């Protein structure tokens, strides 16, 4: 008997865990006395979804529909993809302290570099031009994009 799981079954297993956790968490939704007596309260739909999720995930584990080609997954370009995920997360964290213009320009230059564009002048030109164009368009539409805590602290912006 082959006990190895394919991708569908792994997904089903993860979703089974998620559905059980969701159902348990649903039972912790606070209810007042009136709501507890009510035929429909804040827990009702989550319970229904949790049960539906458990049924679906169980069926998916029992009758997996397709096989996963693990070898082809290993050949994907994981390094730049993971790098970009980290970069986007860092961009989000840097948006407030660095401000829109600096944070965005740096994000774009770094992303271009990660994807193999090594001409500094080209990546810098595209990044700064795009950032300033977007910032200008937003300013025209009356949308304020903050210059950043650091810039404000240095007194460079009004």
């Amino acid at each position, binding site marked *: 008997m082959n006990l190895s799981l394919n991708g569908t079954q792994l997904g089903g297993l993860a979703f089974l865990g998620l559905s059980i956790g969701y159902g348990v968490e649903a039972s912790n939704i606070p209810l007042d006395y009136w709501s507890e007596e009510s035929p429909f309260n804040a827990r009702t739909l989550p319970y229904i979804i949790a049960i539906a999720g458990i049924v679906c995930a169980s069926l998916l584990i029992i009758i997996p*529909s397709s096989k996963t080609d693990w070898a082809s997954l290993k050949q994907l370009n994981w390094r730049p993809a993971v790098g970009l995920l980290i970069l986007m997360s860092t961009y989000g964290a840097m948006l407030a302290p660095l401000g829109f213009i600096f944070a965005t320009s740096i994000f774009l230059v770094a992303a271009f570099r990660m994807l193999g564009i090594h001409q500094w002048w080209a990546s810098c030109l595209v990044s700064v031009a795009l950032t300033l164009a977007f910032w200008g368009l937003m300013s025209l539409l009356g949308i304020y994009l903050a210059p950043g805590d650091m810039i404000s602290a240095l007194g460079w912006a009004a």
Partner: protein
Amino acid sequence: MLDGILLGLHTVLTWQNLLLVFAGCATGTLIGMLPGLGPITAIALMIPITYGFDPASGMILLAGVYYGAIFGGSTSSILINAPGVAGTVATAFDGYPLARQGHAGKALATAAYASFAGGTLAAIMLAATAPMLAKVSLSFVSADYFALMLLGLCLVSAFSSQGEYLKALMMTCFGLMLSTVGTDLSAGVQRFTFGRMDLIDGISFLMLAMATFALSEALMMVLRRGQSEDVQARVDGSQLRLSLAEIKFVAPTITRSSLLGFFVGVLPGAGATIASFLAYGVERNLASKTDAAAFGKGSLKGLAAPESANNAACTGSFVPLLTLGIPGSGTTAILLGALIAYGVQPGPRLFIDEPEIFWSVIVSMYFGNLMLLVLNLPLIPYIARLLMVPRNYLIPVIMFFSLMGVYLVSFNVFDIQMMVFMAAIAVVLRLLEFPMAPLLLGFILGGMLEDNLRRAISVSDGQLNFLWERPTTLAIMLLVCLAILIPLARALRAYTHR
């Protein structure tokens, strides 16, 4: 009715209002084309500008923006698989594969013609049947809406490829789970927020749509670099034409989908999203075996169906808005707010008290569709050049627009972090061949499903007899049972035959 149309023509056919229709369509197309910026954002941005106009002109401009943004969203769905709004998600199913096969021009032209036909047919139907349709939608009760939404969720089998029904159902459940995050407005209690203030208002639809489509698509491009060819983006004038055979091939689909889209759009809460998914599902089921196999791989029918349906539904969604004062979608909710801001009270009396507003909006819809065709078709070769930008430049730009599209709505960096997290999950799920569209549909319908279920259960004193008491509800529930059991039986049969 003829008097009404003449009144509408009289209002719209002034150079100022025609200019407003044109400006609305152009602005809407440009904004809607940017991944992450959909009609809601476009209309919200334009509302302050309309405060200086009379209500009819204001609504004419906003209706143009609405149409333009929907078409712009379709354009980005086709070219870069980044639907800015839920209504154009289904457009990407076949539009994007067509673009990848080098038929970007044909895909965009089909979308333009289908949108025009859908919008025009719906505008005619709206003018002809608005009072009667208002009565029909008035007769729907919570139980019917609940059943209808359940049907929409169960039809996920239409979006999943052969044998992947359970995966699609699982993703629907996942979407429903995500929709319950935040404050339960009826009881005022927090659910699944884990004490985080950022989650009190729930998960943003735009964030989820951008994470699961635009951002995950950009990441998939990175993962598969070298495995796929760049898209042939050069579109010349000849590619924008459809042959007579192609027109004959898609004409029945457009007619059926327009009718379906219009009637679904009339139902408050249903709107362009359900209409486009339903039309896609219906056409796939009606298609011959060979045609059905092409769905999801670049079928013209698969593209024309959601395009005509979502445009027709946009027109249909104005019926409950203008006649009942009930918004049929998030976008019409914003339009409702605009009407109230103009000092106009939408509802049954709008016909009587402000007929020029009602009829000018209807007539401007037709003109808006005409302008879109005139405006968009000649621009298609230029729009398609977006794809000629090298992937290494395009990917970070898509990521930037996706992140900004979400950030500009909330100005909360938590949404960016959440989006990156969701995109990572979406990539893993996509690699394991789990479909994303059912997740989004479950998420969109979750809130409305709960509201209607709550009302239906309250009305029936906690009993479940509301599911079969009314013939309408019973008929829809029977369809729900069929939509669950038939694909499930197929999946089980396929498993036992293996």
